[in-house]
């Protein structure tokens, strides 16, 4: 009898090329023949966006490619890992039940029972909920992080390590639960250290420590880099760690999030179109450097500095001249119709803004 795998490889490849992104994930789990076939095929997935959401008991992996979206939850379970394929769009009518020999989970109630004996750290995590249309199955003896990393590795190979955007977020971003999240995050970092780099247009990263951030920064190559805010206290990191990244000068949009950069030389920060940079110290000489640079080039649209210390703030008028109104300066940019606005919020706001308009 002719079975699917008896078909010639060219045909199997054609079938694989017609799969939607959700089916690609399922196909990879059927058997190693199909997994190899998919990983070796030249699928044309364009404009892909990847999101990873980390909790200590469940990892959410979302991948979208145009209108085609797949959301998979990897949930820890006393007997292994529960895979949750989130229901996202109207599916074709369900097929008649098949007499399955493999072990499937019994139908799940809307809320998945807490299986590890401990309350989830973030009970409102959407990945913990399973609706009746979600598809679940148990991989016995499997580890939920390992299963997610296997899928991530597979999809990144298919994408040839290129994606439009990559988001790595912590489901509950608070220092009080870092000790719970850290083991899971570490597993991802081990993966990042071995693989990559991953090329992308936009990266949004939530991470726990500067050391972990540096591992991620060496793994990604974005054009837009957004580091997420975490509750205080903010974490300090040497600015040179960013500057020595090979792709640093290629970044157009930058947000340092809750990481405070120390030892900043602003001449290394003049290539951004848009930036929000938290720094430890700023002084009048820095403001002068930035002002002169932004008057020479209209590349920058907005450059915001969030500072902790501005030692010689009272001498700002000596550098910038008389303000138009309190804390606001306006300069015409030579050979253009644009102007540069510099504004300083009240000193207790610790914010200095440069806008070209």
């Amino acid at each position, binding site marked *: 009898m002719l079975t699917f795998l008896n078909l010639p490889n060219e045909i199997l490849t054609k079938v694989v090329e*017609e799969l939607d992104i959700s089916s690609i994930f*399922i196909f990879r789990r059927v058997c190693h023949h*199909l997994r190899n076939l998919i990983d070796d095929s030249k699928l044309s997935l364009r404009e892909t966006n990847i999101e990873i959401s980390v909790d200590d008991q469940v990892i959410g992996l979302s991948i979208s490619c145009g209108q085609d979206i797949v959301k998979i939850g990897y949930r820890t379970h006393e007997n292994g890992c529960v895979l949750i394929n989130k229901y996202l769009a109207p599916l074709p009518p369900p097929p008649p039940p*098949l007499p*399955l*020999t493999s072990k499937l989970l019994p139908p799940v109630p809307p809320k998945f029972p807490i299986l590890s004996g401990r309350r989830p750290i973030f009970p409102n995590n959407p990945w913990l909920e399973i609706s009746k249309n979600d*598809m679940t199955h148990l991989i016995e003896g499997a580890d939920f992080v390992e299963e997610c990393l296997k899928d991530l590795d597979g999809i990144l190979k298919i994408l040839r390590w290129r994606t439009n955007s990559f988001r790595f977020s912590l489901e509950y971003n608070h220092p009080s639960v870092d000790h719970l999240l850290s083991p899971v995050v570490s597993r991802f970092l081990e993966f990042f250290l071995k693989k990559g780099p991953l090329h992308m247009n936009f990266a949004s990263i939530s991470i726990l420590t500067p050391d972990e951030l540096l591992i991620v920064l060496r793994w990604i190559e974005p054009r837009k880099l957004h580091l997420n805010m975490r509750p205080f206290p903010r974490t300090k990191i040497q600015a040179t760690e960013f500057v020595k990244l090979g792709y640093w000068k290629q970044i157009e949009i930058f947000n340092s999030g809750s990481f405070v950069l120390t030892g900043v030389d602003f001449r290394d920060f003049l290539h951004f179109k848009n930036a929000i940079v938290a720094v430890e110290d700023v002084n009048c000489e820095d403001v002068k450097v930035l002002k002169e640079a932004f008057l020479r080039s209209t590349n920058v649209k907005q450059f915001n500095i969030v500072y902790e210390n501005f030692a010689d703030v009272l001498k700002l008028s000596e550098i910038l001249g008389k303000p138009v109104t309190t804390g606001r300066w306006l300069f015409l940019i030579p050979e253009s119709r644009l102007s540069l606005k510099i504004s300083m919020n009240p000193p207790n706001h610790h914010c200095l803004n440069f806008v070209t308009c």
Partner: protein
Amino acid sequence: MSVENAPVVDVDEAAIPVEKKMYYRFESNDKKEFRVSELAIQQSETLNRLVEAMGYTSEDVENKPAIAIENIDGKTLKLVFQWCEHHKGEAIPVDDGSVPKIVEIPEFDAKLMDIDNGLLFKLIWAADYLNIVQLLNVSCKKVANMAQGKTPAQLRRVYLLPSDEEDEAAKRAAQEAQDPRAREVEEEFEERKRQGGNSFF
């Protein structure tokens, strides 16, 4: 059954009496005969080249034996020729990779492919063998669509595939069948390992 006694299946019956077209005769590997219009044959690059090379006249197609297609059975070939007749005259898509390919399954094709999976895989194999580009496209799309909303276990059932474990077990069984001593050696090795021995030899 002899060729003379084989049933003749006209796939495009309505067209035969009124149109003066050439109808070629083909025979499947289970001796089923089909009459297929010249225009429908153009959907198959393989068959089109074959009939061109043969250079048959109208008399030849009636008098000479039907062209044998030895690798395809009658049930599958009937579906193939039904598809070709329905889509005769349509442009054959060229897949040069220059534009993203979007395959949609027309209603007729969906009904035609509403068959068991074994026959569907045969249809795909035949479309590839006969080089019928669009039939191959829609049938591959149909197989890909079958994966939607299924678990890996259900897919194994649908595609008649073994799991990795079953595959490994089958390989082991095949090996053991070749060398019955292999299993004994393996068991002995495991036993020595349990007893703390570092080396088998």
